[in-house]
């Protein structure tokens, strides 16, 4: 079973076209293995990305470099999934 220990989901808010462009560049970097939950649209719509643990520092550095604001929507995805699995197990029991 694949696990997601240390994966974070970031909610990113771009404020102008330059930052949107920087986010599009980020999305295109396949080696980071980003899972785009909400892609880049416009400045009024946040971007949600699941970032594997090994890509976190690269992604956050990229965001900081372009001064793009973000918050951590899910700090550790596996914790959320474990809770979900526990709920299902409890219901089954």
């Amino acid at each position, binding site marked *: 079973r*694949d696990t997601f220990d240390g994966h974070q989901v970031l909610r990113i808010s771009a404020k102008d076209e330059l930052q949107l462009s920087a986010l599009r560049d980020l999305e295109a970097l396949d080696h980071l293995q980003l*899972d*785009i*939950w*909400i892609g880049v649209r416009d400045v009024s719509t946040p971007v949600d990305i699941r970032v594997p643990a090994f890509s976190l520092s690269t992604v956050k550095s990229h965001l900081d470099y372009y001064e793009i604001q973000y918050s951590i*929507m899910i700090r550790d995805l596996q914790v959320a*999934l474990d809770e979900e699995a526990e709920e*299902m197990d409890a*219901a089954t029991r």
Partner: protein
Amino acid sequence: EPRNTDAFDYSRYHTIEEIYNFQDMLVSENPNLVSKIVIGRSYEGRPINVLKFSTGGTSRPAIWLDTGIHSREWVTQASGTWFAKNIVDTYGKDQVLTAILDKMDIFLEIVTNPDGFAYTHSKNRMWRKTRKPNPGSSCVGVDPNRNWDAGFGGAGASSSPCSETYRGPSANSESEVKAIVDFVKSHGNMKAFVSIHAYSQMLLFPYGFTKSPARDHGELNELAKKAITNLASLYGTRYRYGSIINTIYQASGGTIDWTYDQGIKYSYTFELRDTGRYGFILPANQILPTAKETWLALMTIMDHSSRNSY
């Protein structure tokens, strides 16, 4: 295991086997209203089941509902299960639903991507695509919402098998998509088609692959507005609405662009609520509120379809 559909726990997530069992129980409990049609097989050989709610007649106009084409959006399959039970529970009691079913059939596909759904339970909770291997690539699966013959291969879909929005080698290459295409074509009298996804609260209509407005843009827009207003009346959940390309982004090969171009005027796609926690990873206590509020919007669309024959 629950012995009947009253004992089924609609407030919890269920495996594909449990949902298959649920479907069979619903059919056996309501033989005069519900039947199960197997419209095809998934790549891994699972049945692609559709529940048909019908009060009789032949070649009746029909409404199509599907949930779970993106397998990891579990709240959609869970909502679909609740919709099915709600239909049998309220037919004959709810005047609007009764009037709809006395005139039209409803088809409901609860697990639209069976392999992907099973995979989310067994191997990778974040899986979104189908499970068919891609020759020449180590990456598996196709985004079944980019695999339809509507602007297929255009902008807004990926040609890379490793992408989450990989369109596939050709339109209808995925058996899960082809099964619906064949069924809709052979039915020939589908009047509304609603494909239900989950994330970020939107009600969308064609087009996604082109900026050209749909012929019925005005009516679809008005109906969407009415539907989300009714949806919000329950818990205040706020939805955006509009054409796909103007509301989210350009997306080619999408489901409802194809259905609309087949002549199904009332073609919509939902993105259900993500309030309550994070994106589509909704805790189980969000299932019933999501299903109940969505039902109000679905009823608005179905009622309008029933009253405005074309």
